[in-house]
């Protein structure tokens, strides 16, 4: 039977609870957001005793469904003050699902100034005091835990940035190669740090596994689903070959690649940091072009990037990180960006927030645009070392903007705007403005339809159709984020008619239920409304669903595009 594991850090006690009927049909984001909305007072301090950190595998995690190994983490975000869900690959989701853990809820704050770890196994969850690994960086934590508990142990960990409760801190998840994937956005690592939990280890020996109600139906649907993923040019060919970084060149061509802290829409050095160049470099140096973030991933958009001597430098090297430290910081040295990616993994900080932050820090004059060596030093010594400057920078783009009086600060609800200029790709601007998460491209990835010709085409430079596009994508994404599926299944789902019904068939076969497409859409709407309700309770209004002022006063080259949506037009988003 599935269960809820609950840990109270105030009393250092744990409990195993049955799954309430209302939560039985939920997983992933749908479940973390439902639990946070039900149990966390929206006005609470995100780093205080009333916030809760919730982990939940998706509805299909732990099954043989392709790409179903994503783990959702939820809480009130210390970065945005909104509700937050951030999902990641790695091995933890499938281990938790096989153990029958529907959700792990961590509440309260320890009374003593001590650090702890949690251990999840077939008997439940336990709390231990931890001394050895406090202050250690993430790769050292993984290495030590594999030695201590065995190679197969699943790990969720925070680095020094999370220990110091900086609001850009992430939670790292061990991947199948003992490297890291991240619950990156929204500072959830600081919430884990506030609860003084350095790491959570998972042992799935003796796990009961996931029971499938109708195995034959599941098998057929899983095959159809996997075929759709492999047949679509994006998930079957583009992503495995070039990674997400294939986007540098296409956004650059479209004039939507934010450059020099969102001053321009094109970067002269784009080709040097592009997916095409990265592919050539990886191949020449004996790295891996294809790599999955979790077992069962058949898209394999990740990669292993080596240095010029053929030594491992980083993996999971994503477009948003490369765009941010590249174009937005005017750095065209892909090796230095890879070094930064590795340091960010190691110290445990969100690579999107940090990349956006460096653009603002360069504008503030803390370092020069293009100075990759100083960027690396600051990451390692100042932020990783927890100096006063490091803590301002580790608070993210909004933090450094406030500290240094910068007006061009690309954030919504204090979360850094990623990788796509909302003036020249207007659909994503609606997503940034209205997402319950703060600026988050994955919440409603309009780039698919504005730029990539997936799911039709809506002109990125015009206002027409953008609100509806973003709304439909945000609803669908909230539902997909509940399944444990990687968001990239959306590319085939938008274009191949058999894909989404096969996904729904797998859910039905797994649980012995009969959801329809409409039910799934309604689930997505429900999740968005639950999240929106939490944010309203926390004090947010429609006036917070706005982009920073500079987007309305500064045009962006080459199309001289400007953000020109009225308040009424934006607010129409919530009319569903």
């Amino acid at each position: 039977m599935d269960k809820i594991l609950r840990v109270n850090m105030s009393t250092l006690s744990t409990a195993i609870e049955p799954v309430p009927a209302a939560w039985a049909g939920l997983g992933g984001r749908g479940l973390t957001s439902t639990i946070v909305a039900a149990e966390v007072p929206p006005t609470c301090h995100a780093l205080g005793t009333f916030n809760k950190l919730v982990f939940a595998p998706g509805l299909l995690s732990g099954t043989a469904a392709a790409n179903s190994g994503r783990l959702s983490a939820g809480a009130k975000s210390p970065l945005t003050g909104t509700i937050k869900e951030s999902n990641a690959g790695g091995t933890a989701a499938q281990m938790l699902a096989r153990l029958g853990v529907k959700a792990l809820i961590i509440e309260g704050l320890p009374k003593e100034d001590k650090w702890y770890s949690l251990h999840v196994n077939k008997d439940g969850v336990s709390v231990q005091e931890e001394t050895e690994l406090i202050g250690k960086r993430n790769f050292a934590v993984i290495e030590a835990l594999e030695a201590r508990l065995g190679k197969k142990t699943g790990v969720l960990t925070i680095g020094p940035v999370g220990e110091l409760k900086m609001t850009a801190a992430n939670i790292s998840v061990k991947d199948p190669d003992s490297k890291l994937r991240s619950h990156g956005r929204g500072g959830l690592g600081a919430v884990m740090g506030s609860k003084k939990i350095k790491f959570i280890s998972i042992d799935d020996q003796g796990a009961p596994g996931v029971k499938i109600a109708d195995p034959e139906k599941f098998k057929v649907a899983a095959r159809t689903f996997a075929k759709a993923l492999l047949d679509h040019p994006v998930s079957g060919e583009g992503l495995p070959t070039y990674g997400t970084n294939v986007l540098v060149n296409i956004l650059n061509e479209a004039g939507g690649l934010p450059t020099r802290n969102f001053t321009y829409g094109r970067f002269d050095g784009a080709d040097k940091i592009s997916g095409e160049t990265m592919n050539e470099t990886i191949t020449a140096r004996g790295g891996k072009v294809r790599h999955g973030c979790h077992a069962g991933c058949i898209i394999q958009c990740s990669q292993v990037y080596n240095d010029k001597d053929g030594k491992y430098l980083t993996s999971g090297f994503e477009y948003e990180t490369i765009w941010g430290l590249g174009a937005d910081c005017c750095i065209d040295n892909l090796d230095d960006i890879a070094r930064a990616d590795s340091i960010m993994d190691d110290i445990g900080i969100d690579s999107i927030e940090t990349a956006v932050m460096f653009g603002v820090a360069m504008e503030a004059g803390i370092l020069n645009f293009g100075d990759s060596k100083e960027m690396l030093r600051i990451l390692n010594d100042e932020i990783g070392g927890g100096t006063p400057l490091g803590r301002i920078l580790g608070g993210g783009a909004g933090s450094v903007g406030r500290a240094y009086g910068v007006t061009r600060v690309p954030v919504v609800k204090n979360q850094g705007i990623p990788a796509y200029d909302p003036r020249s790709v207007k659909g994503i601007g609606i997503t940034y403005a209205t997402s319950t998460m703060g600026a988050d491209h994955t919440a409603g990835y309009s780039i698919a339809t504005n730029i990539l010709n997936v799911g039709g085409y809506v002109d990125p430079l015009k206002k027409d159709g953008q609100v509806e596009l973003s709304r439909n994508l945000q609803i669908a994404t909230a539902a997909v984020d509940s399944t444990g599926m990687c968001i990239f299944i959306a590319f085939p789902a938008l274009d191949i008619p058999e894909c989404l019904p096969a996904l729904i068939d797998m859910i039905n076969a797994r649980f012995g239920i009969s959801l329809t497409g409409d039910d799934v859409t309604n689930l997505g709407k429900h999740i968005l409304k639950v999240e929106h309700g939490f944010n309203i309770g926390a004090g947010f209004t429609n006036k917070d669903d706005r982009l920073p002022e500079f987007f309305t006063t500064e045009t962006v080259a080459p199309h001289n595009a400007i953000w020109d949506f009225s308040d009424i037009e934006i607010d129409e988003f919530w009319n569903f």
Partner: protein
Amino acid sequence: MRITVKLFASFRLGRFKFAEQEYQVGTDCRTIVLALGLTEAEIGVIMVNGRHAALDYVLQEGDTLSLFPLVGGG
């Protein structure tokens, strides 16, 4: 007329990244696509001067034509 042609992702294999080429006045995108040995079905995105365009779009002197297979990320 002079057209700058830019190719991306797998379109570069065995071809080029960027090239300035001479075409007859009135040439459309399709003509150039086919002349490059690409098929209409392979084309994901066409941009002319950074704006999305259709295969039958007629190019002007000095235009930049960018051709992509279907790609994605995020």
